[in-house]
């Protein structure tokens, strides 16, 4: 067989196989399953964080199927790997909706990946559940944001540090990695601090390049800055740069009780590969901690550790860790299932209407409510202190769930923006 003939034969076989598969699925599966897309990076730099979210979705799907599925049909997950490649996210999203005919997608971690798929979901009028805390400044009819908006994480954390229990900080170091999430968050925080009467000379905003590892100068600067009054550090440092930063803090003798550092992207999973001794007493703000004592949480952790053991998920089968985005994913998929039941259909617009006001007993111990209009969850905010074993002691929480403000009122340009998505999708 010469090469071109062989190629032709191969492609023929492929087409035949494809047709067979299509025929099979349309006959045997399409009738009695509901397809659910999972769009998380399983390779590349984000794989470390996103892989467990894929497993969380699969676990929840198994659970729903074990209870008999939805509308008399079983759920069928369609897992794709966008490989931490932002444009690929959009392609894979198109494939999920157009080819695989999924009715809903759970996915994305970084803001840039969400921005990349957003036009696809709006154009094809499909549904995306986004489970990670983010910088706000976005609201789409086709997206449900189950992670925190800035007023559900950053602002309560700063309020806590201002309070007497948090140390009564008067001066602020806003320290972050140099990219969009820290810059937007710090812009909001600066405006918030101004509104609390903090002057510009009492705010020190600093950025470091990605992967920065020499924090000597920054720590020395913090020390100098802290001499001017009780200081707290708000850290949006991303990824593993946190370790040299905290190590340097410890070595320079800045203790958590003198200069507390509150971090927005350090959680249980991030502390897994870290020597936690120098971090003890520093803070993190999330809407969920594994250490929260609540029956729903005990159940959630047990489910996850059983699932991880059964499926042999690397790392988690020996030491099962849960974290905030996993909780947000879990709430998201369960609320979606409830909404489908209520609507009696998987049609996008009907499900969106049914999502409003859904409630779910969240692992964080509250009853989580989907806002009637703005597509965000009402969330309790917890401040945790890092313990030597890599878990968090919850030292403070909001009295009740907080409503999300995707358009931060502290950014002047947001004045007059509606707190709900336009009902007609942008074309």
């Amino acid at each position, binding site marked *: 067989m010469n090469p071109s003939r062989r190629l032709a034969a191969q492609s023929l076989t492929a087409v035949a196989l494809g047709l067979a598969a299509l025929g099979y699925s349309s006959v045997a599966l399409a009738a009695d399953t509901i397809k659910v897309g999972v769009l998380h990076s399983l390779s590349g730099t984000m*794989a*470390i964080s996103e892989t467990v979210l894929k497993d969380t979705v699969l676990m929840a799907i198994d659970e729903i199927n074990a209870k008999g599925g939805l509308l008399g049909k079983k759920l069928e997950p369609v897992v794709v790997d966008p490989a931490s490649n932002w444009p690929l996210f959009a392609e894979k999203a198109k494939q999920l909706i157009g080819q695989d005919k999924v009715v809903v997608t759970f996915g994305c971690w970084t803001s840039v990946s969400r921005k990349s798929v957003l036009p696809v979901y709006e154009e094809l009028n499909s549904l995306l559940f986004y489970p990670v805390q983010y910088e706000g400044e976005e609201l789409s009819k086709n997206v449900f944001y189950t992670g925190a908006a800035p007023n559900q994480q950053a602002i309560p954390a700063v309020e806590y540090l201002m309070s*007497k*229990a*948090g*140390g009564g900080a008067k001066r602020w170091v806003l320290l972050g990695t*140099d990219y969009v999430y820290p810059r937007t968050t710090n812009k909001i925080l600066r405006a918030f601090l101004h509104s609390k009467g903090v002057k510009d000379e009492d705010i020190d905003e*600093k*950025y*470091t*390049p990605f*992967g*920065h*590892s*020499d924090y*000597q*100068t*920054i720590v*020395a*600067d913090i*020390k*100098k800055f*802290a*001499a*001017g*009054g*009780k200081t707290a550090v708000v850290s949006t440092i991303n990824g*593993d740069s946190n*370790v*040299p930063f905290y*190590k*340097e803090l*410890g*070595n*320079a*003798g800045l203790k*958590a*009780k*003198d200069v*507390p550092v509150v971090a927005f992207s350090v959680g249980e999973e991030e502390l*897994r*590969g*870290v*020597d936690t*001794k*120098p971090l003890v*007493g520093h803070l993190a703000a999330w809407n969920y901690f594994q250490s929260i004592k609540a029956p729903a949480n005990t159940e959630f952790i047990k489910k996850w550790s059983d699932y991880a053991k059964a499926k042999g998920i*690397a*790392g988690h089968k020996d030491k099962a860790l849960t974290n905030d985005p996993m909780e947000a994913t879990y709430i998201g998929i369960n609320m979606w299932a409830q909404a489908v039941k209520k609507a009696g259909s998987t049609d996008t617009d009907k499900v969106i209407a049914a999502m409003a006001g859904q409630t779910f007993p969240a692992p964080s111990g509250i009853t989580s409510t989907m806002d009637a209009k703005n597509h965000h969850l009402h969330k309790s905010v917890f401040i945790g*202190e890092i313990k030597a074993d890599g878990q968090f*002691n919850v*030292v*403070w929480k909001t009295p009740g769930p907080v409503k999300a403000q995707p358009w931060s009122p502290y950014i002047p340009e947001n004045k007059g923006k509606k707190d709900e998505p336009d009902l007609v999708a942008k074309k």
Partner: protein
Amino acid sequence: MRWFFLLMAALVLAAPARALTPAQARALATGEVESRIAALNAVLPTADDAAVALIQAMADDAVKFTDSVVIVMKDGKGFDPVSGAAVAVPEAAEDVINNNEMRSELDAALASIKLFSPDAKVRAEAIKTLAGEPSESKLPLIEKAYAAEAVPAIKDAIGHVRAAMLLGSADKAKRLDAAKSLGDSGTPATKTLLLERMKAETDPEVRAAIGVALGAIEGRLAWGERLGVIFTGISLGSILLLVALGLAITYGLMGVINMAHGELMMIGAYATYVIQNLFRAYWPGGFDYYVLLAVPASFGAAALVGAVLERSVIRWLYGRPLETLLATWGISLVLQQAVRSIFGAQNVPVENPAWLSGGVAAMSNLTLPYNRLAIIAFAVLVLAGVSALIARTRLGLFVRCVTQNRKMAACMGVNTARIDTYAFALGSGIAGLAGCALSQVGNVGPDLGQGYIVDSFMVVVLGGVGQLAGTVYAALGLGVLNKLLEGWQGAVLAKIMVLVFIVIFIQKRPQGIFAMKGRSAEA
């Protein structure tokens, strides 16, 4: 021993010690932070040794409670805080959680007890803790300690804390005295206090005194800052020197553009990690000394990999820089993936031994971390070793003669192929040493090397290819320059400015700081 001091301290305390009651223990350990602090301050003046033990246990996070009892944990067993009798720990017992506010109150309480310890060192430590947050409620205690103190240095320190507490006093004369006395303390905490008082102060005389004191303190602090910049610069320079030294041999002397240099460092760092784990598993008592074994291990591991690389790949590419570059870059990817497959994609934790954690307070606002000091010393040792090896040993002589004139060296009977392997292994081994050092300050992960490869080439090229001395000057120069710029313009801009500086410098002086002289330059 500590218990003994605490016991003594409790005995020396002014008021007659009153026995801790179960109700007090409960109030200390449970409830809202506010009420616990109130309970702590109520118990403190009359604390007996049971109360002191309970406070200490709370500071150590070793207290549990249930609805009815408070239990002090020691070595996994429960004890009643009042009677000291062993008790069973119920399943439902929860840990007593202290937030930062509670923890600083507990520390202050312990410090005020330790202030009466017979051991001068314990007293000096205690007064340091108390200096952080002067509160007037502790003034009588401090007055008493001040009167009782015999050691002049500690008496001074107590005097400063006393002055800090008196700064808010209603009596103008006391405030004036306090301001004057604080002028010669020179800690950043004092500056904070004075600044705050300055805002509230209305009396012109006291304001003037505070102004004078502030000026004196700021003058002293400024020196600490200047020295701090120089120290951080040298510290960064020493790291740059370590990462570039291996490359100065493989690239500088041998001319191999080794893009896998960073991965050799990573191998050194992982060797350190493995040694650490072995110590933890088989000899936990000697954990503090694992670094001493990790140094030769990281050298050996990286040198071995380097030797294998040279024999299998690089040997066939001498004199073809472009192919070498591509091949070594490929090797770097292979090595990264190999480590990912063996150890996982996530960073691995490498713990500092106790003697490398913390720092020495050289001045009130200048702390020199032990790990940085150790790396500076280590860099000096490695540099001395390498230059002695190159300049004084037979191997060094052969390396120099092979790199200067390969054919002539071969004619003289030098086994040039073997010398190449040795030299490359040496350069790789030094990269491994750098990795071992980096594991003490940064993250250990598969892409550790990526962050340093540009820096190391930068240093070697800037210093002048083929010159060890140039590498040293370039590393220290870049380190100090980077830190000066970072203090002035922030980390992001500093990095850019340094790169721009190097581009301009290399354009004006392509041969680097030190040019090769003589016939070897043309070879």
